[in-house]
């Protein structure tokens, strides 16, 4: 079901210092390439699908301190493949 976005996440972490002045916006990354930064999640996603079709890409909110999601019930997460 899944494609690992490990490479894209590594690129995000590497490029974060350069992206910090655009905090709150959304970055589109494929492989080791930062494609662009967008105002909204939907805009970044649209550009990702326009450029890469259904090939893997990452859309990530730019945050110096990453916001953690909290869920109060126990959950099991599927293993990435």
């Amino acid at each position, binding site marked *: 079901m899944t494609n690992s976005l490990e490479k894209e996440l590594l690129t995000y972490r590497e490029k974060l210092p350069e992206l910090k002045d655009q905090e709150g916006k959304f970055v589109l990354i494929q492989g080791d390439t930062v494609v662009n930064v967008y105002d909204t999640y*939907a805009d970044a*996603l649209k550009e990702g699908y326009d450029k890469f079709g259904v090939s893997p890409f990452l859309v990530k909110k730019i945050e110096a301190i*990453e916001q953690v999601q909290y869920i109060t019930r126990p959950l099991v997460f599927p293993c990435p493949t």
Partner: protein
Amino acid sequence: MPHLTLQISPGGPLVDVLVTASEERREALRRVGQPIPQPIQVRALIDTGASCTCVDPAVLRGLGLTPTGSTPIHTPSTGGALHNAEQYDVCIIFRNPEISLELPTVPVVAAELQVQGIQALLGRDVLTTCLLVYNGQRGFFTLAY
């Protein structure tokens, strides 16, 4: 204001919604001539204890989705550690005699929920644009957009 009112079940405030690929993904599939997945009906729990919306992986698999995001997540089952969960972009549709509402692009986390008798948690990210009334005394809840 469009709204729906449902009884609170023993499992909590449950609502049936349709989940399909996001508008952006459906457009991409259309362009390359690939089939558009049919929406899947899921039973969702409205969960104010969830900061984000979660969908069972079997549903995401049924829609042929691949992840487009990742987010750190903390639950009682992750202990003191954070888990980096994959995110998928979906469209969530409320279709009911009382309401017809489409949320075209929602990032959701894949989490095994089927064992809990539901296939989705509607978290505060989805609730942020609505009014939720939980009337425990009368045994119903209302969701208004």
